């Protein structure tokens, strides 16, 4: 039976739809191995002292939230567990809402955490790399108020935080430019602040060279798999762990499609030779 390309495509789409949807409805609970990239990022946060102020930059928008939002929630939760104080910033306009949603979700498990004391959202600033350079000189100049219009000077957790050098670590969850690379180039290379972060699986290969002996990047969370690894490291059953089942099945299915495609091509070649 010979199928038209359109029919083939429809079959692929339908099978993939079920392959992705079913594990989400009926989770399998497969586990993943934790990579060294994730462990390095984890150790950075784990080994930072209590009461230190850290930055998580939300440099993405809802299109990539499936991969990056679980990382944000896991990192905030880890920082809260270690009693670190979290500043949220955004180099992407929609990052502000992403940060708010992440804080809302994590704070529902940590009711004692207080805005302004344990965390704050300084909001979005335009300018990308130049904004980070300006933060290196003065944070209050770049963010005179937080996203609730509270003046910088009146936010208790920021009393001793004047510039980037006062930050213990920075994590940029990034789905493009500006994002992780800009933080690394300015905050890490110019101000020697440890930088870690997360990105979509598709852009992870471009960041791996920076996880080197110079620690330009302190580990990297690349895609949903790394998010689920991080969740298992902090003992959290989050959305990434659930979604990994669907991703694993989808990957397996893609492999099956590749095999079928090759068999079909081999048959076609054989037919032409005859």
């Amino acid at each position: 039976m010979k199928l038209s390309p359109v029919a083939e495509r429809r079959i692929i789409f339908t099978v993939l739809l079920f392959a992705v949807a079913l594990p989400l409805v009926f989770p399998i609970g497969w586990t993943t191995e934790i990579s060294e990239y994730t462990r390095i990022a984890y150790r950075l946060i784990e080994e930072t002292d209590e009461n230190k102020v850290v930055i998580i930059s939300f440099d993405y928008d809802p299109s990539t939230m499936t991969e990056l939002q679980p990382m944000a929630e896991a990192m905030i939760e880890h920082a809260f567990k270690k009693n670190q104080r979290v500043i949220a910033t955004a180099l992407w306009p929609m990052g502000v809402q992403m940060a708010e949603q992440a804080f809302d979700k994590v704070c529902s498990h940590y009711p004692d955490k207080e805005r302004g004391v344990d965390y704050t959202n300084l909001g979005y600033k335009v300018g990308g790399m130049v904004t980070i350079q300006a933060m290196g000189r003065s944070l209050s100049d770049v963010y005179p108020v937080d996203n609730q219009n509270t003046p910088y000077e009146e936010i208790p957790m920021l009393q001793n935080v004047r510039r980037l050098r006062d930050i213990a670590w920075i994590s940029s969850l990034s789905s493009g430019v500006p994002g992780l690379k800009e933080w690394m180039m300015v905050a890490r290379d110019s101000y020697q602040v440890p930088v870690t972060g997360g990105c979509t699986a598709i852009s992870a290969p471009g960041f791996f060279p920076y996880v080197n002996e110079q620690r330009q990047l302190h580990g990297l969370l690349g895609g949903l798999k790394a998010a689920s690894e991080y969740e298992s490291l902090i003992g959290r059953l989050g959305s990434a762990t659930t979604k990994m089942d669907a991703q694993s099945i989808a990957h397996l299915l893609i492999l099956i499609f590749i095999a079928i495609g090759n068999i079909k091509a081999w048959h076609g070649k054989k037919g032409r030779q005859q």
Partner: protein
Amino acid sequence: MKRSLPLIFAFVVGIIVLISEFIPHRPFNQIVSTLENWFMIISGFAILLGQISLIRMNANKIANRLPDWQYHLAGLVSFALMLIFGLLWGMQETPGLMGDGQGISAYLGSKPFDYLFENVYMPLSATLFSLLAFFIASAAYRAFIIRGFESNLLMITAVIVIIGRTSIGTMLTGWLPESLSFWHIPNLADFIMEFPNSAAQRAILISAGLGIVGSSLRIILGIERSYLGGDK
């Protein structure tokens, strides 16, 4: 004058910023700090310019009834709705021109802007990105065909990385003894990402870095003028 002034300005600013990297002291650090503030202000205006451009482009297509003009109309209406709701009642904790809109917020469960963002923009945006999975599956079926040595190599690498990045890889070779741990599929996938991939990526990054240095110098010295608009 129209072309010379921006060229002189780009040269002076470029040289000052360059010098400040090597001499981070007065007056260079102060000048650069001022220039950074200017950049952020100008970038803010760029957003406004982008919005004006978006309205003009879409309005022209609707007025001229170009193909698919209905989509452009939908885009403009969506833009206007978000703008109006944001201006009137604000977003999250920030009040708008008419305050917090407690009545409408109580009815919707959140402010109208936040309601639309969470229930329309977010799902639509995530859906569009998710469509990639379907295209990748379809493309893999048609494109990953073994035709020669290179495509064979690509195929084997892809299969290892695909399996290694899932839970299945762990299950398939998890039984291997410690002495053969290198052949454990997730470890193989990590090896590919850490060495061959990083080597290639570094080569690309170094080339791109040199390219950026070259084009930056061309802009500072006024050789590259395409950013001014026009042909030269």
